Structure formats: C-alpha cells, structure tokens
C-alpha cells in the first residue's frame, strides 16, 4: 500500500474520528451520570442536523450561526423527554429492583418514534447544504488537503470535549452532576436536586448534538434514517473508550475513525464496518471497562 494514500486515510480518519468522539460524548455523559443507555441518541443527532438544514433552506441562515437555535432547542427537547418520559421510571425504580433494560427499551421506543415521525413528515430523501465555502480546502504540502468545513467540525469537537471537561470540573453545576454520578442518594442528602440534575444532564447530552449538527451539515447529507448508523457508532466509541469517560470518548472516536478510514482502503466501505463491530466485540470480551474506563 502506498504510504501517501495510507497517510491521507489516517488523517481523514482522525478528522472524522474526532467528530465520532464528540457525538458519543452525550451518550457517555448520560450513561455516566444516570446509568441510562440512550438508544434514541442517534435520533437526537438527526434532529440536530435537520434544524440548521431547515433554517438554511427556509431563511438562508448560515449553519454556523444556527448553533444559537439548534443547541438550546436540543437542550429543551432532551430536558422535556427526560422530565416527562424517563423520570417516572426512575421514581418507580427507587422502590423496586433496578432494571436497566426497561430504560433502554423506553429510549428505544422514543428513538423509533422520532425517526419515523421525521420519515412521515419529510420522506426518506437525503438533504444537504451547499455553501461557496464548502469546496475550499486547506493544503498540507501538495498531496494532502483537508476540507475547511471538516476542519471546523474537528476543531469544534475538540473544543466541546475540553469545554465539557472544564464545565464538569470547575462549575457548581458540574460538581453537582459529578456527585450525582458517584452516588445518587448521598448527593440528594447533600441538598442536590437529583431529578433536576438528571434533566439538565440529559439536556446537555442532547445540546452537544445540536452543536455537532450545525458543524456537520455543511458537508454531510441528512435523512431521517441517519440516526441508526451514528447511534451504533456511538455505542462502539463509548465501549471502546470506557463508558462514562470523557477523554475515553474522544480516544474511542479517533480509533474508530482511523480504523474505518484505513480498512476502507482495503475492502469496500460497506463491509469495512464489520471491522468496527469486531473491535467492539473484542473490547467487550477482553477489556469490558474500555480503554480509559474505571472499574464499576
């Protein structure tokens, strides 16, 4: 294999992988704090992509400016879904035996509904944005180029990860979230409103997808079925990096991106995803806590 082509594949893999990592952040955060596997995660990304698309299509708003609408909107949707649909289950489980599968089924139901409501309203078409900006690229030497829109998406992903880590480490709300993650009952005894923290955590996990959607739509086609592919990828990323770990999420994303991109040089792109699943299974069997996860 030509080392230059391999090099290009690795660079592309890193760019896409950073994005995978940031997409998986919300899933990891929600699991880390609430022990909820959010099967609707991909569907929230689908909404995060559609909001800037329609703002551009209907009002001609630049997708990068649409962040101010998309992120709060996704926060609100996530907050509401958690407060109205998932919270009642937590209240019930406090008295009964904890059954993580019922939460999983609940979010799966929400995801199936969201995906198919979008399908009903919009049809199965793929939609995308064209900007005069989107064709321009950043050149490294004379062979390697990186599209500006992808570069912006990558840098945003890193910024979100750093921002989220700082938020959790430094702010009062961040500390409240971390203490709830460690011990729900002890946090409640210290005066933390646990159900409010859960609502905010869920909203935050979704708001990240609102930001990602805005930086992704300039180079990515959106359709109502886009959620499933990214949902499954996010699970792979989170399991790879260690569930609940924020640096692990980015590391897992980078690994998945590079593996996908490099294997696609050897086999067809559709069968390349077999390798991602094989890695997923191997990690689960050999190191179930992930690369950067702690023992639960």
């Amino acid at each position, binding site marked *: 294999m030509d080392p230059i082509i391999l090099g290009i594949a690795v660079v592309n893999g890193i760019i896409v992988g950073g994005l995978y990592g940031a997409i998986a952040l919300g899933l990891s955060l929600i699991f880390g704090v609430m022990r909820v596997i959010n099967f609707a995660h991909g569907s929230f990304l689908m909404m995060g992509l559609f909001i800037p698309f329609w703002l551009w299509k209907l009002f001609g708003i630049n997708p990068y400016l649409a962040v101010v609408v998309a992120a709060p909107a996704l926060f609100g949707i996530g907050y509401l879904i958690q407060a109205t649909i998932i919270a009642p289950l937590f209240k019930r489980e406090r008295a009964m035996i904890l059954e993580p599968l019922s939460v999983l089924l609940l979010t799966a139901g929400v995801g199936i509904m969201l995906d198919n409501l979008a399908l009903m309203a919009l049809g199965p078409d793929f939609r995308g944005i064209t900007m005069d900006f989107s064709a321009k690229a950043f050149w490294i030497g004379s062979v390697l180029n990186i599209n500006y829109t992808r570069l912006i998406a990558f840098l945003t992903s890193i910024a979100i990860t750093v921002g989220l880590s700082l938020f959790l480490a430094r702010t009062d709300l961040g500390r409240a979230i971390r203490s709830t993650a460690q011990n729900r009952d002890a946090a409640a005894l210290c005066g933390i409103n646990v159900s409010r923290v859960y609502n905010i955590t869920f909203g935050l996990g979704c708001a990240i997808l609102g930001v990602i959607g805005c930086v992704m739509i300039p180079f990515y086609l959106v359709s109502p079925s886009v959620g499933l592919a990214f949902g499954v990828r996010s699970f792979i990323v989170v399991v790879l990096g260690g569930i609940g770990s924020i640096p692990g999420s980015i590391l897992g994303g980078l690994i998945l991106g590079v593996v996908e991109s490099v294997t696609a040089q050897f086999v067809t792109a559709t069968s390349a995803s077999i390798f991602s*699943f094989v890695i997923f299974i191997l990690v689960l069997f050999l190191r179930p806590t992930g690369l950067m996860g702690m023992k639960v």
Partner: protein
Amino acid sequence: MLKQPGPRNGSLYAAPLLALLALLILPAFVRGEYYLHVLVGVLFFAYMASAWNIVCGYTGQLSLGHSALCGIGGYISTLLFINLGLTPWIGMVVGGVCATVVGVIIGYPCFRLRGPYFALTTIAFAEILRIWVENTEEILGIELRGAQGISVPLKGQSPAIFQFEGKVAYYYIVIAMLLMVMAVTLWMERSRTGFYLKAIRADQDAAEALGINSTRYLLSAMALSSFFTALGGSFYAQYFRYINPERNMGLDLSIEFALMGIVGGQGTVFGPVLGAFLLTPAGEISRATLGGRFPGLHLVIYGLVLVLAVLFLPKGLIQPIRQLFSRGGARQSAGRRAAA
C-alpha cells in the same frame, strides 16, 4: 413475580382454546387472499416472538440479534433447495441445527455480559453476519448474490417441496408451528429448567450461589430458541419465495420480535402471541390504508406502544388479563368451597 396460575384454573385455558378453534375454521369464512396474508403475518410474528421469548423472556436478557438466526434458517433451507434440490422440509431442520450451533457459540461468551452490554453484543454479531452476506456474491461456489437476495424457483404446486397453491396451506403450517413453540414453552416453563431460568432472571448471582449452573441453562434455552427462530426463518423465506439480507436478517426484524414479546408480556406462554396479535394488525392496517402518504406510521405506533407499555404495563399486556382470570378463578374456587 414468579407466581404462576395453577393448572387447576380451567378458565385460563378456555379462552385460548376458543381462539384456536376460531383460527382453525377462519379460512372457510375469509374471502380474499389479502386478509389471509395478514393473518399469516400475524401468526408468523406470534411464532417468532414466542421463539425469542424462550431465551429472552425467561432469562431477562434482551437479544436484538435473533434476526441473524432467522436469516441463517432462511438462507440454509433456500441454498440447499436451489443447489442440491433438498426439500425445504428437511432444509429447515438442517438450518435449525446450524442456527442452534451458531446460537450456542455466540451465546457462550455473550452470557457473561449482562443488561445493555448483552443487547449491544447481540446486535454486533447479527450486523456482522448481515453486512458479510450483503457484500458476498458467492462463497465456495455457492451463489449468495449479496444485497440482491435470492429467489426460490417456483416448481409448481407440490407439498413435498414446500410450495402450495394459495395461502391456506401456509396458514395451517404456521398455526402448527405456533402451537409447537407454545407447547415447548409451556413444557419448559413447568420443567426444572424453567424454574432455574426464572431464578437466574430474578438474580443470577443468587441462583449461582444456590448451585445452579447458569451458563448451562441459559445455553439450553438459547439452543431451543435458536432452533425455532431458524425454523421460522425458513418458513419466511419459503412463503415469500425470496430472501435478502436486509429483509430476512436486518436489525428491524430483531426489534420487531423483541417488541412484540415485551409489549405482550415476556416470560409467559401467551404474552408474545398477544403482542403479535395486537401489533401486527395495527402495523398492517396503517401501512395499507395510510402507508402511501405516511411511510413509517406503523413504526411510530410501535414506538409509542413500547413507551406506554414500559411506563404503565412493565409486565406486558398479558398482566391485566391474567389478573382478571386469576381473580375470576379465585372467586370460583371460593364459591365451590362455600357450596361444599
């Protein structure tokens, strides 16, 4: 949770028996192939949800990979028929045995994982198989035809090779299959294995502490479930005389089996059947009447029903019906006692 209605409770069986009688004489009254086709679909999903229920309902582990077993059954019976001329009647048993082997091999490492990890791993295994078939045109000289799928050649009406005129024969075959899987479930539920499985579902660590070899019993349930799922997969392929990876082994199919089992009531004999009888027609009607204008409406309904079931009826739709019967049964026996 573990309480079962006792076998003396006769009224519990009267309703299903009447329903069975109605199903058996139904083709005499149903005019139009379409309605019969819908009924075959309902019964097929009742069968598949019941097969899924044998392992998932009774052990509490959520498998979303059963579509792979369904696909294995379908492909093996179809390929044996096309390449060797072997009748699908034997082909489906061969497919069932192969799926059992695959199910046990995959199940062995998977059962060490619990909860969401188990569910995700079963998805991963099923997707690997589906993507591999989708990208394979031929292997060892056998044509798989990738994403295109394989058509089963029509050789004329001949019960010996699973090809019948009209849909009535398929209808009775799927009823027989459903009765078989329900009988096996009932037998398992009453057997020692059934009680062990329920103990494992309630608390695997406690069950192991009591000396139950949980891996052994989980794998026996997995083997049974795999065999019946593959049998159903063969039926699905022979009924439509067409098989492709997306349709016969896609994730959607797994979700549908699981959904019907869960909504109806997992870990019961009648629950998955009830789930299929309620959800499949709801899906079919919305697809047939509004499907053109609203693609995906039936899945919105499925999603909504799933959310409502988890929130309000965590033990499935069978639960309130069961309570009704057991209360009725209790009153009857109280009356009998009073009379004596």
